[in-house]
């Protein structure tokens, strides 16, 4: 929608003001995330740019909050806890979710709508309600304040994403490929591992990434179900913000932004690979 050379002055004004408006909205989206990155290198315990920082004086910058972050046992153990919980729940969610998606995409699935609704429900129900329910139930069966409890809870939250992404991948799946494999004498498990799995891998991985980030970023369930032993990074940030706000949080935030950029890039590469493998060209 480039501006045609015969555009009237009114159209010209509208065109440019629209572009400026969009620029401002994009600025609103991205600026808050970018603003905290330089602040995490602040030499002073302030949440605003000091005079030294603005004049680009090297004295205004330091790595003290990163040293704080990586030197604190509480933060280090929270990284470990987050990784344990996120990896275990991602594994559980991915295996169960992929199997279910394979079943759901068969044409002969009875009660498909009802089952899909139940499987998606962890994504729909507000987190505070899930957390409250899990708090009561997991306490009564001794799973509250254990790693297993948090992992099961996070796996439940992550499965809808795996089911949705893998089902979406299977929509374009050519079933004559499995029939071809079978007619060439491959038993079902060989067909699955040699034909089906390589084709749906991009969907499985992006579902797993969603499940991972869901667990890695989850805080409400952790607040209710986890104990002191299972404090994760978001839980540490939560108390950091509420109790003793220090720029260490900004260092943590910057590290997390870097992680999300890495995840975003991985997802984009996967999407391109998926399109290539299925013969869809970018229009």
């Amino acid at each position, binding site marked *: 929608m480039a501006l045609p050379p015969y555009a009237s002055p009114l159209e010209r004004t509208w065109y440019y003001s629209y572009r400026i408006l*969009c620029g401002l909205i994009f600025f609103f989206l991205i600026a808050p995330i970018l603003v*905290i990155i330089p602040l995490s290198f602040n030499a002073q315990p302030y*949440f605003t740019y000091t005079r030294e920082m603005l004049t680009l004086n090297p004295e205004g910058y330091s790595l003290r909050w990163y040293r704080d972050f990586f030197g604190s046992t509480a933060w280090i153990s929270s990284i470990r806890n987050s990784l344990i919980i996120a990896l275990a729940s991602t594994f559980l969610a991915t295996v169960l979710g992929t199997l*279910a998606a394979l079943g759901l995409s068969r044409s002969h699935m009875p009660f498909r709508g009802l089952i899909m609704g139940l499987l998606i429900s962890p994504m729909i129900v507000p987190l505070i*309600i899930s957390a409250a329910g899990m708090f009561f*139930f997991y306490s009564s069966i001794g799973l509250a304040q254990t790693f297993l409890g948090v992992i099961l809870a996070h796996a439940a939250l992550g499965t809808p994403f795996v089911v949705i992404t893998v089902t979406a991948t299977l929509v374009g799946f050519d079933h004559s490929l499995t029939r071809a494999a079978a007619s060439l004498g491959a038993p079902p498990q060989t067909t699955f591992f040699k034909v089906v799995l390589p084709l749906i891998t991009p969907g499985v991985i992006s579902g797993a990434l969603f499940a991972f980030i869901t667990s890695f970023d989850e805080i409400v369930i952790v607040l*209710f179900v986890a104990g002191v032993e299972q404090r994760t990074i978001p839980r540490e940030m939560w108390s950091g913000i509420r109790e003793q706000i220090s720029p260490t949080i900004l260092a943590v935030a910057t590290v997390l932004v870097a992680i999300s950029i890495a995840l*975003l890039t991985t997802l984009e590469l996967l999407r391109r690979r998926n399109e290539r493998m299925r013969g869809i060209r970018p229009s």
Partner: protein
Amino acid sequence: MAQAEAAAGPAGGPPGGPMVTADGVPLKTSLRRAERRRKITALLLVVPLLAFILLTFIIPILEMLWRSVDNPALVRYLPNSIEVLQEWDGEQLPPEEVFAAMVEDLRVGQESRTIGQVAVRLNYEMSGARSLFTRSARSAEDFEPPYRDALIDANPRWGEVTTWRLIKREGRPLTASYYLSAFDLTYDDHGSVVRQDENLRIYGQLFLRTLVLSLAITLLTLLLGFPIAYLLATLPLRYSNLLMILVLLPFWTSLLVRTTAWIVLLQQQGVINSLLVGIGLIGDDGRLQMVHNWVGTIIAMTHILLPFMVLPLYSVMKTIPPSYLRAARSLGANPLVAFVRVYLPQTVPGIGAGAILVFIISIGYYITPALVGGQSGQLISNLIAFHMQNSLNWGLAAALGSILLAGVLVLYWLYNRIVGVDNMKLG
């Protein structure tokens, strides 16, 4: 019968007879068997996840919903009093046998330390009930007949008909009182349902605030999301893919990082206030209060939920051929008319999907309001958390939660009608 058919003809049966497979089974039966087998395999693949979700998610939620009507304390721990109270008409003070039964229950309750649960339960309905029960139970061992005078001597509230009406009313295994509280209703002295006193009506106001703030956030995300979704949908792909990163990066960034960022930006010693003071727009003593109130909640949540509006809008707009707009222009419509009458109606599914999605997420939001909302920016979720963790009135938390859940499920049903779960796009 299969044998008869198999005997009738080796290769497919006689002309006009039922078709059979090579091993002689009628084709229809064979097909039905194969279909049943496929159905079972499909089910077997789904069953593990279904069982998992039922156990770890659905049952906990149903159990929590049950708590909103479950009322075991009095039935379990005041069994004698509840039984004799059934005969009582509720007009005059109950007879001596009721008092005797109560003293008996208090003695047992003191011994087994269960009277506290009764005291806590009734204290939700009547302030002062906690001390009434715990103190009377402590001295229950020393009471002498007639128990009516002994109890009324110990605490005059035993001589009030309303106390006994309350015990009789809550002496049932199910209660409606948590839901009544959640709707700002209560029982009057005669047991009929009336509205709560003006200054005690907090939940209605909070539900209303949750709805108003969520609507405001939905409207803001639509106002901000529509222009950029349109730009992304109409730009050539190599530019729009780059700009899409600006939408997706916040989407993938930790919620707590984004909330922290807004606290850093908005607080009184924060970036925006310092900037405004620096360029002289406001004085150092006139720093704006933008966080720890409802303004903070709206700004931060609009930012956090904006991608949820842009992505569905974008995917709908992407399917609208630009030639429609050109056709309208060539038929003489001015740009505004062409946009409003040709383009806008086609984006309605995207607007509906995005708006319901944002609305569903925001009415159940907890973290951001808790961190940036202060007093005036709290939503219904924060009150549920308060009753879960601080006041420990779990029945009321469950009642508030089930009302919220019902609202969300209705909205989700609408969303499903508009978009369909299968068409949900992620990222």
